[in-house]
């Protein structure tokens, strides 16, 4: 078969493809539905990974509280770690609650918009409370945790020198936190993605209705 023959075979193939049946618009709506399902499955999987990580962090915090590896000798020095454990426990609980709620939802083509609204609701509900918990958690880790080593520093260098020495880890932590925030580490993307899906779905439903009318 030479090149001219190849081209003629391809032309024939192309013509026959052009004559195939048109695609139903319902199929395009289904494609959005499938993407939501896949995103939903992925979101649930991420929650399991997140919860596992939180439990590890909580265990580490408890180990610090019980084992005292930093040789704290004042009760006040334990406060940042205690707040850390408390916040992590809250995050783990919130994640477990969201995961259980998400597990109860099943996405199907016919009920896609209702399911998406439910999912968005689950994400939005604890948002405010978790935002405050996150602020407390980050403030503790950036400012209070480095300050828990202050009593030792005061003994060694005196108040002002110890305070200025503590500014180094505080600045580093603050800079890391600032960069992470700028890079979008604290953004909740799942709810945004599902909202985009819902918008796309509503647009496609409108098209389908319009086509039916025509």
């Amino acid at each position: 078969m030479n090149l001219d023959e190849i081209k003629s075979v391809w032309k024939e193939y192309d013509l026959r493809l052009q004559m195939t049946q048109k695609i139903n618009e319902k199929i395009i709506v289904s494609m959005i539905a499938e993407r939501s399902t896949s995103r939903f499955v992925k979101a649930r999987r991420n929650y399991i990974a997140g919860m596992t990580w939180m439990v590890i962090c909580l265990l580490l915090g408890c180990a610090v509280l019980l084992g005292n590896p930093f040789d704290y000798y004042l009760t006040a020095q334990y406060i940042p770690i205690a707040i850390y454990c408390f916040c992590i426990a809250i995050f783990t609980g919130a994640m477990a609650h969201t995961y259980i709620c998400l597990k109860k939802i099943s996405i199907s083509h016919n009920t896609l918009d209702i399911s998406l609204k439910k999912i968005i609701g689950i994400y939005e509900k604890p948002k405010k409370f978790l935002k405050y918990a996150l602020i407390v958690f980050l403030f503790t880790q950036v400012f209070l945790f480095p300050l828990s080593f202050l009593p030792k520093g005061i003994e060694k260098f005196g108040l002002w020198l110890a305070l200025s020495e503590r500014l180094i880890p505080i600045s580093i932590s603050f800079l890391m936190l600032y960069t992470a925030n700028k890079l979008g580490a604290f953004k909740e993307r799942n709810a945004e993605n599902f909202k985009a899906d819902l918008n796309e779905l509503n647009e496609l439903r409108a098209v389908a209705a319009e086509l039916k009318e025509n």
Partner: protein
Amino acid sequence: MDKEFVNMVNANRGIIYKVCNLYFSEEEDKRDLFQEIVLQLWKSYPSFAKMSLLSTWIYRVALNTAISSFRRAKVKPSCKPISVLEFDIPDLVQSAKQNERLHLLMDAIQHLSKVEKAVILLYLEEKSYEEMSDIMGVSKTNIGTKINRIKTKLETIIKSVRDESR
């Protein structure tokens, strides 16, 4: 715009079918790729500035999806809506085994690399070098060299495939 999109996909479904048939032989894989291409087209449709031809833009999105994006994000969903499962990509190769020449050509194309498949598709679609370079994002000279190499390779493959089948 939305109605326009559905009509546009339907008017150019042949291009998407050809890309799907060229890159995959399994029905499920073809369907997955088809969906991914339509989604990518839908996502980029608002930003399609009509600076280039509609078909050029469709070829670019479809081939880019087939070559890169789809390979990276091959996460298969756990379940599929019934309407998508009912949808079949017209193959015409498997269903027309009597068309030996088409079967032979498709068999030979399967031996080419992903990029070579894209180039040969555009060549067979009789796209100009300028359009090809616009779709593929490479220079016209590069396209010319590639085409010559692929044509020779394809002819050799066809010859050997035919010899094997005898």
